[in-house]
């Protein structure tokens, strides 16, 4: 499988690359400024990063131009870009959480294995509103009940507000296996 990892000038992008290695034969890291329409990959990964989805209109345009066969996986800012691209709302969140951990409450029966497991959080914005006909909320945070894991019902889009690649996340291999299984369905 070939993955295209879009870097939003983040300092965790190469951790994501390292995390993805076991399931991808090839990972191309590309800065968001260098995106061109004719790029192809089985999987497009949107990295975390500074600022908000409104600051990356070219990334929104790029994922909307992808063939429906390409899967998109968004992490943190990446998930917020997916929600924003589907006309949802991303709002400031206080108190900001950077380098902190929360337990997941998993709603999706097929992913219950991750219920109550710790995940790392780095965000001061959150997905405050999205259409439940479009996105399924797979998990929320146990302490503050924020959407943590979303899956699009029609498109091959999945997003996580937490950081599966962080050393603070308890079961990175399980998160990766779930991503891999989803990509192969």
């Amino acid at each position, binding site marked *: 499988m070939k993955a295209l990892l879009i870097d939003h000038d983040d*300092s965790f992008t190469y951790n994501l690359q*390292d995390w993805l290695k076991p399931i991808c034969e090839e990972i191309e890291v590309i800065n968001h400024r260098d995106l061109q329409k004719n790029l192809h990959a089985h999987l497009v990964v949107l990295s975390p990063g500074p600022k908000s989805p409104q600051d990356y209109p070219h990334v929104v345009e790029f994922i909307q131009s992808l063939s429906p066969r390409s899967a998109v996986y968004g992490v943190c800012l990446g998930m917020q870009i997916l929600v924003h691209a589907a006309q949802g709302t991303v709002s400031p969140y206080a108190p900001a959480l950077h*380098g902190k951990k929360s337990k997941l409450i998993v709603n999706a029966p097929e992913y219950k294995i991750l219920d109550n497991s710790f995940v790392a959080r780095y965000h*001061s*914005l959150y997905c405050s509103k999205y259409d439940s006909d479009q996105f399924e909320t797979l998990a929320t945070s146990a302490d503050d009940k924020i959407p943590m894991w979303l899956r699009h019902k029609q498109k091959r889009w999945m997003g996580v507000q937490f950081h599966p690649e962080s*050393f603070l996340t308890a079961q990175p291999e399980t998160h990766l296996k779930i991503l891999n299984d989803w990509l192969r369905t």
Partner: protein
Amino acid sequence: MKPLICFYQEDQYIYSDNYVLHSCKPDESVHDFLSSIENNFKKELKVVQINFEYSHQDLFKDKKELYPAAKAAVFVLNQHEVLPAKSLVAKIPSTITTLNLQFNTLETEQDFIKKVEKIKTDIANGRLYQVNLTAPMVSDSIYTGEKIFKNFFEKFSGQYKALLPLTEYDLISFSPELFLKKQNKKLKTQPIKGSIAPTTDAGKKLIDNPKEDAELSMIVDLLRNDLNHVEKESSAKVTAHRELMKLGYIEHTYSEIEIETDKTLPEILQSTLPGGSISGCPKAESLHVIAELEVYKRQAYTGTIGWWKDNNFSLNICIRSFIKYKNQLYYHAGCGIVYDSDAHKEWDEFLLKAGSLSLKNTK
């Protein structure tokens, strides 16, 4: 020649008074400069010094400079000795006396606090997660670099001390922080974050503090990233997390991250400089914030100093360091600013990092 000193292994120091100093030219990139040194002097023992600005010269080009300095310098040692601390101190001819120094901060408490608040607003708006905010202090000084090194040697404990007689200035470092160490294939880093004044239960308070935990944890993820960027073929591992470091004048927490690689020093520095613990997270955006808020170029401060031979090296983060230029002595300090930082407490931490220096507190 003026003596050159650099930390080596454990309690051992490199001492040399026979060396050739090479400086990076203004129009040459630090990477090219280091690559040419590597090609010409691979087998020799070298002592390296690189400024904070490294390859981001353009971002900081309009900032004021405190002293003239090359972007990077390398001492190629013709002869050297390896000495334990005791013999090293005895070898420096100057006497130990009370130094008459009175430092003024070149930033007022008011301005520093305003900048902390500005960073907190940027963090709340999603611009970034952490910034290391620093400022210099200055004192008149008639003392030589050697005298300052010898007199503060005991007061500023730290494993990564050095005295470098550079062309325009002397750099005296009492750094406690390891930036990068490479031994054969193993490359490791030990970022420090989290600080507390040394009281009886300081260590426990520091470990139990969730703000200090988050501050170090995010830098651990950032340095994992930088090491994973250096080497795609292996994975960075966290080998220690939130260990306590007691320095007498202050206590810190630090972590350790390792990776296996065959890459060379110039290649490794391209993915790792400036150091994550003294810039911020995400690093690229934090450098923009530092360029916007700090008045002076950092130059040698928060750059790096260390030794280099073959493909092995050990480099510090140049903090807790003095710059002796003409009759001025500079010292800088800084703090990691995060969302839940208290601006007044950060100012206290800034002062605490001046150790036992005599400070005039400018309101």
